[in-house]
């Protein structure tokens, strides 16, 4: 895990995302809206909770990699927090320190043949630093 203090994590997330994380009042609408919540170890609401609590282990969560930026959460957040940007900030913190999540050379040949380019491009942008 990145060596960040609680304060550094909070500041980095707010700066990178441009979002006021502390505006969250934990209603859970984001989690209820998330089509991927069942695959996540922390729900989107919990990710916000962890950041507010300064728990840097949020960076170990699979949630930030499962999030596909579908923007359902941000469309419904009553406090106008763009949670997809918060997720992106967490991903970028890791990707910018060399923690790639996708190896383009390990994609099976059959997939390379038929998957649309936009999937590779999007995947490369979301999962490679």
């Amino acid at each position, binding site marked *: 895990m990145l060596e960040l203090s609680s304060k550094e994590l909070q500041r980095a997330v707010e700066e990178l995302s441009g979002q006021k994380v502390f505006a969250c009042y934990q209603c859970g609408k984001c989690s209820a809206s998330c089509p991927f919540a069942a695959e996540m170890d922390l729900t989107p609401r919990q990710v916000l909770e962890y950041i507010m609590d300064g728990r840097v282990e949020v960076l170990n969560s699979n949630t930030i990699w499962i999030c596909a930026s579908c923007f359902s959460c941000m469309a419904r957040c009553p406090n106008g927090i763009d949670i997809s940007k918060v997720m992106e900030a967490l991903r970028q913190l890791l990707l910018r320190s060399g923690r790639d999540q996708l190896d*383009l050379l390990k994609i099976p040949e059959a997939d390379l043949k038929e998957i649309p380019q936009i999937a*590779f491009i999007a995947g490369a942008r979301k999962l490679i630093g």
Partner: protein
Amino acid sequence: METVRIYIMGKEYSVPAGLTVMKAMEYAGYKFIRGAGCRAGFCGACGTVYRKEDEYKLRFAVACQKLVEDGMYLVQLPFAPAPRASYDLEKIRPSDNVLLKFYPEIARCVACNTCTKSCPQEIQVMDYIQAALRGDIRRVAELSFDCIQCGLCSMRCPADIKHYHVAQLARRLYGKYLAPKAEHLAQRVAEIEQGKFNAELDRLTRMERKELTKLYEARQIEEGVGV
């Protein structure tokens, strides 16, 4: 003798004006074991980067062609660590995703155009990577035709793309599968195989040298062609 000041890897040298970067480096005492090839601007072995004292832009050239300029800070980058993908041209086809398959990193292109700005051949490098991404092999081959594989594009790319290898694969696929076949060539080969020219060849091989010379000198010469 008119001289100019250049800086080779930071050390100042005074060298005669009018020399190429390569000759200037040799004048300054460098000896090329690698990083020099044809010395004629074709082989791409002597990629060089430089800045001028009064410019912020990094510039690119091949050392055997670029003439030294006063206040040039330079270093040769004769090699790009960029392994080529392994493929058997007989077994692959010019399909939509074939370039992406061997070089999936092209999906990381952010269209910054740094590659194009780094090309000493003034090739639209970014445009051909974009064409590669959409499977337009013909366009990649056309746009990259003048590539001398110096590798400077690949040393500058923020997305780690190995442009010149992508282009080489595209040109190979184009040549083998997409370029129109020269019909007259196939026809001539068939004629040769059928023995149409056997008698003529027999006559020439049996000719005396003097007679052959005379025939050669009297041959029909196309206008405007010559070395």
